[in-house]
């Protein structure tokens, strides 16, 4: 099967953002996403995940270049200033490019 390259956008953010973030990601053209619970430490301190206010989520989206750019731009503009979050992008090989 031929492989093709797509973008994997990973966002780790406060769990409070889940509803808004997922709405945005879909509206920007992503065909799907995966959400897992996460905890860790960053510039805004320890996010221990023991209760609502200290919980993080990790959102992974596989999409084409254009959607990835739209998501990056939107997240940067809208959320970076006030929320504990990071975003990073990597290339991934996919087997069924039409899904993404």
């Amino acid at each position, binding site marked *: 099967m031929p492989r093709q390259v797509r973008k994997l956008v990973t966002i780790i953010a*406060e769990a*409070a*953002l889940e509803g*808004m973030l997922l709405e945005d990601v879909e509206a920007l053209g992503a065909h799907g996403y995966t959400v897992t*619970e996460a905890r860790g430490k960053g510039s805004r*301190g320890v996010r*221990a*995940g*023991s*209760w*609502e*206010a*200290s*919980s993080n989520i990790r959102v992974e989206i596989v999409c084409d270049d254009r959607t990835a750019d739209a998501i990056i731009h939107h997240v940067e503009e809208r959320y970076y*200033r*006030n*929320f504990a979050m990071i975003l990073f992008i990597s290339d991934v090989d996919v087997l069924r490019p039409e899904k993404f």
Partner: protein
Amino acid sequence: MAVLDPVILFFVLGVAAGLMRSELRLPAPVYEFLSMVLLLAIGLKGGAELGRQSLPALLPQVAAVAAMGAIMPLLAFPVLHVVGRLKRADAAAIAAHYGSVSVGTFAVATAYLTYRDIGFEAYMPVFVVILEIPAIIVGVALARGIAMETRWKRMAHEVLLGKSIVLLVGGLLIGWAVGAEGLQPIGFLFFDLFKGVLALFLLEMGLIAAGQLGSLRHHGPFLVAFGLGMPLVGAALGLGLAAAFQMSLGGTVLMATLAASASYIAVPAAFRLIVPEANPALSLTASLGVTFPFNILAGIPFYHHLAARLEGGL
């Protein structure tokens, strides 16, 4: 009778374990489950009682309680903004936390009264629901002004469909629909196990409170003073309101406790999304690191003492 209610000792254990950096931690789903059971139990109990009340007779009290919830942030805001020199958004957020209520504190106060065989108006949970909301609206208006482009639709969604409101109101409605008899089949989980659930919940709250204590060092003595002073102002308002409505001794203690407590579920969740520039560390440090432990350990017995004096004086 032991001087200390055992559930309080679970809180102390949680704080101690947290301060000593024990490995102990409750998985988040367990904490969520415990708080769900508490919210539903409180709602169900109040709802069953509502069936026996004439609702119109409760309306003046409901209105007065809602007004109290709206006034408290207005009292707290200038103190935080002017005296404490906190930024507008931060001052508004903390003010909203203190106008709203802590269901955990309310649960401890009901357990405190039950432990001492002191009766109270069983419809008090209605006031818990009523007090959750106005402070959030006033707080957001203080942060942003009323004309601004606050997304009121998002706000209505956050405020009315937040976890605590849905479970409390849902419990009230179910309790109201089936009455005390109808609740018997599920009473084992919600009523018989209530104290055990509360004990585990307080263990986790102790761990969380201990975690907030660390950030107290950064935020200084003002927050500590506010976190200890504001509950006393609230308690005074609550005592006054309870006296005006000639509530029982237990009801007076609960009203004072409600007014003295500060939210840590509904308000932080709503503010995080509606006023994200407010720093949640400040409000949670005050609410969970200072006021919650104060109310649990010293506040409730103190309000009991005051309510008894008040009743004796009448």
